[in-house]
């Protein structure tokens, strides 16, 4: 079974090729699109069973497909590397991916570009699998850029409107900034360690580099740049909210469950390197808490259902970065997994709401949908509970682990913990605000769930189960990561506060958005409230800042030099020569007096020169 590993990315890739090259009829396109990922998921299941059946110490499998490129002392192979970490990612990608593909058959039913959509989705799954299975950093980079490309293609899927195109390009370019930093990191690693094979590299880094020295710090910081871009963390987070322009299933698959977690995966994959750079790891933790807090506040005031979820994704990714930063590696991956369950659920449920509302996304135009859209409602409630991390849901287990590890972290663990708990409180508020506004209150519409079929409901139900009980899954990562020195165990007040935070959040939201809505209006009406709301709504002004600081100067420079200033130098030469030409042709007057005068003058000058030089010489 393990030898079939290469087939796992190959099937979705073949699906992409079929869909892209042969204009398949719609039903067949659906079978190919969903089927290829379904087979990949089944293969993954088989591989997982066999792999986990092996003794824990032997749980590594490498499959070399072919030599990709070799130049001088540099070699990169097309080789897959399977270990428990890659396996967990693979299960998430194919499993959740399959559910979302199934859902998309219903969601994209009326779209004329049905098979183009599935082509892109299949390509994405293939690229994402290469990303997590890549044996060396160049192959990982191939998957990394590949998922970025698919993200671009799918955000701009409805290409008629220029805004979608803009959002798509923004996503690609902003993440490319991070990718470039990562590429430079690769160059640096190769220059000093002579390989880009991940396992060798980690080994060699540990052997050659002292903890905290300059080179590992630099290399880790450069890789971190890539992770920040992909995972939408400060300061490269601005692309994610706009990425919601794409169809909702891709928001679930790419911008919640899989691609945006690639940054977390990268850091976990290269954790040996990051552990040699404790300063960078601390920065990871700080960026994590800042992002989770800032995006939490932003989510509080959004009105678009998908944007709320987008900011909440950023915020949850912040928790994962925090976990990485404090060395709670397994907890980060655990949260990655549970987040994939409940955030995919929430996005898919919001997609169902959006369909039933005929593509309305403003939550304040919804209301009272509890009875009208029962499946969506219960999906939202379950997903929301897990997102807010109420006890016994999947989100609770993973987030609790992270908060526990943060609390015992040696370096300002208390502060980081406190901010993260505040974040948990805010998560409670914005999640229940969303649910109260959309599903409770006055009935504003006539929506119903008649337009969504089983292929939409079934994935929702499965994801509901996973969101509730997924926390009981034991992630088999004990041998991948170093054991934690201090067992994270929250006790006493800290424990109580950690558990209580989301409840308090829900209570506040209940007061403001259900119990006494006039309260929230009052807050929104006073000037400080207005200002804060505007500031938070804009995502803390980052877009504005980047526009002024980067985009406008660049655009000015580019426009100013449209005609290529270098060319004017050659124009100047041409102009000078024409000038000379004109001057000389002016002397051709045809009048004998002028010519005679010219000759006389010439004679005088030449004789004069001769005399002068003679005078000088002798």
């Amino acid at each position, binding site marked *: 079974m393990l030898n079939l590993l290469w087939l796992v990315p190959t099937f979705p890739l073949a699906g992409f090729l079929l869909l892209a090259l042969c204009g398949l009829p719609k039903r067949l396109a659906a079978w190919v699109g969903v089927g290829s990922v379904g087979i990949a998921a089944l293969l993954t299941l088989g591989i997982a069973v066999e792999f986990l059946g092996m003794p824990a110490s032997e749980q590594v499998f490498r499959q070399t497909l072919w030599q990709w490129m070799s130049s001088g002392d*540099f070699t990169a192979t097309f080789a897959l590397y399977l270990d428990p970490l890659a396996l967990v990612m693979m299960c998430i990608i194919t499993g959740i991916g399959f559910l979302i593909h199934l859902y998309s058959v219903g969601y994209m039913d009326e779209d004329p570009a049905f098979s183009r959509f599935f082509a892109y989705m299949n390509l994405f799954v293939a690229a994402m699998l290469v990303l997590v299975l890549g044996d060396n950093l160049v192959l990982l980079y191939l998957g990394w850029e590949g998922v970025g490309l698919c993200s671009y293609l799918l955000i701009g899927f409805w290409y008629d409107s*220029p805004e979608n195109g803009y959002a798509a390009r923004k996503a690609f*370019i902003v993440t490319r900034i991070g990718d*470039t930093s990562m590429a*430079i990191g690769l*160059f640096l690693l190769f220059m000093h360690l002579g390989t880009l094979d991940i396992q060798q590299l980690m080994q060699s880094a540990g052997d050659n580099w002292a903890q905290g020295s300059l080179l590992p710090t630099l290399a880790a910081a450069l890789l971190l740049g890539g992770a920040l871009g992909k995972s939408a963390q400060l300061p490269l987070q601005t692309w994610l909210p706009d990425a919601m322009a794409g169809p909702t299933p891709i928001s679930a698959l790419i911008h919640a469950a899989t691609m945006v977690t690639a940054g977390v995966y990268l850091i976990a994959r290269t954790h040996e390197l990051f552990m040699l750079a404790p300063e960078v790891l601390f920065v990871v933790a700080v960026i994590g808490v800042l992002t989770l807090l800032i995006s939490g506040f932003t989510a509080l005031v959004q009105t678009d259902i998908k944007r709320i979820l987008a900011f909440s994704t950023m915020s949850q990714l912040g928790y994962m970065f925090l976990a990485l930063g404090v060395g709670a590696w397994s907890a980060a991956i655990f949260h990655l997994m549970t987040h994939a369950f409940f955030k995919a659920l929430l996005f898919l449920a919001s997609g169902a709401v959006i369909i039933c509302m005929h593509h309305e996304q403003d939550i304040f135009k919804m209301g009272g949908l509890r009875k009208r859209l029962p499946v969506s409602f219960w999906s939202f409630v379950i997903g929301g509970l897990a997102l807010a991390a109420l006890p016994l849901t999947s989100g609770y287990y993973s987030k609790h682990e992270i908060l526990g590890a943060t609390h015992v972290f040696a370096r300002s663990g208390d502060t980081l913990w406190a901010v993260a708990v505040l974040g948990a409180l805010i998560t409670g508020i914005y999640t229940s605000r969303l649910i109260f506004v959309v599903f409770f209150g006055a009935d504003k519409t006539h929506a119903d769930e008649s337009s969504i079929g089983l292929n939409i409901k079934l994935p929702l139900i499965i994801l509901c189960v996973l969101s509730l009980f997924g926390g009981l899954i034991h992630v088999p990562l004990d041998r991948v990561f170093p054991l934690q020195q201090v067992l994270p165990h929250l006790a006493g007040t800290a424990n109580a506060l950690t558990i209580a935070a989301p409840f308090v959040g829900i209570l506040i939201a209940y007061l403001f958005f259900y119990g006494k809505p006039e309260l929230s209006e009052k807050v929104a009406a006073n000037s400080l409230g207005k200002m804060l709301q505007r500031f938070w709504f804009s995502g803390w002004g980052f877009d504005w800042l980047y526009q002024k600081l980067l985009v406008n100067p660049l655009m000015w420079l*580019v426009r100013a*030099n449209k005609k*290529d200033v270098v060319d004017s130098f050659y124009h100047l030469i041409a102009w000078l020569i024409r000038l000379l030409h004109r001057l000389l042709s002016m002397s051709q007057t045809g009048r004998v007096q002028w010519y005679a005068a010219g000759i006389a003058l010439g004679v005088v000058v030449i004789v004069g020169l001769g005399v002068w030089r003679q005078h000088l010489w002798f």
Partner: protein
Amino acid sequence: MVLVWLILILFLGGILAWLADRTRLADPRWIAIATILIDLLVLISFSLSSSSVTIAGQEWWATLDLPWIPRFGIHFILAMDGLAFLMLLLTLFLGLIAVLSSWTEIKKSSGFFHFNLLWTLAGVAGVFTALDLFLFFFFWEVMLIPMYFIIAVWGHENRTYAAIKFFIFTQASGLLMLLAMVALVYFNYQQSGQLSFSYFDLLGANLSGAPVFWLMLGFFIAFVVKLPGVPLHTWLPDAHTQAPTAGSVILAGILLKTGAYGLIRFCVPLFPEESVIFAPTAMTLGVISIIYGALVAFAQTDIKRLIAYTSISHMGFVLLGVYAFNSQGYQGAVMTMLAHGMTSAALFAFAGSVQQRIHTRDMREMGGFWGSAPKMGAIVMFFSIAALGMPGLANFIGEFLVLLGAFKANSWITVVAALGLILAPIYSLVVIQRIFHGKPLVPRDISDFSSREVLMMGMMMLITIGLGLYPQPVMETVGLVLQMGVS
């Protein structure tokens, strides 16, 4: 003799195409296709059967050395190694693409057009195989003049200006190269008493006391004009924009490569020590080209002009890689040459077909083409993505290896060069946006690619993917950096 035939077939085919048109006996387009196919066949069958010989520490697949003007030590030397073979293969393949891309575009004097096209190819084939400096210069001029006619006669609205600009830039730099050549031969004669233009004689020349650095600079400038590198690039946007489609395809795909080839074959091996000293400057010029080309490209509204500037940006990577003096840089540079050959040829062919359909190159008048021409959209999307360096496609291999090698040689310059990776999607994706996405200002339907165009693009796509996923055979053909004579 095969080497002579490789060039001769193209010359003869050109004359035949002209005659065929004058006598109305055959379609010159088919004669051009047949000529190139025969030449390709000769080249490939030769490469399969060749055995290598070693001259001056280098492996050559074939050499030919005949006396030409013995009085001045000028020989008729042709030789081929892996690099030359790849360049010839690229030349002939893109020659085919060029004929196909102008299939329906050329209305007047089709015979003379294909004569010029084949003669340009012949000149280029000569440039890639000549190893006598004088012979090299001869072919360097041969490829220029028919190209001048292609632009001046079949070009677009501003063709005379563009053709003359192209001619002056190339002539002036060619003159510089000729002076440097003669001076090099003269100084070598002074030192060794042997008058020879032969590459092999000059390779090991000991030129103590001569102004060698300036000679190197003469070669360098001539080749960088062709490459082109900023600030010697301004002939290129005009020439590309005004040339007919086949002309742009040959210019971007092949002629620019002669500049890079010249650097690799002549400039560096003839002056290894000076090149090492000069490397930081050359690399800096490469980086300036990368960044400057990308920025100016982004500003353009004329699609051919935009692609022309992206060529400058991409060829900057070649300059950077060549002067890194390690295997990654060198092989990356050659890969970039091949990859850029494919993508730029494909994009120019696309631009030509759009201009033929809607009679404008202004992207402001385009938009929303995806709806009516999805095949065209997908294909152009493919090449734009290849051009921005997507892993798995050829350009990535080239750029990645160049940067990897250059980083070892000069980290800070390379960090700046890497910024080009951010600029590439900015200009590439905006092309897609302006032409295929959004809604058109003037609502119009555009007919999709014909099967001829799909075939042509399909071939280039397959090569781009092949080179991107399995570049190893090519890299082995290119050989190691040792061939440049710098360690």
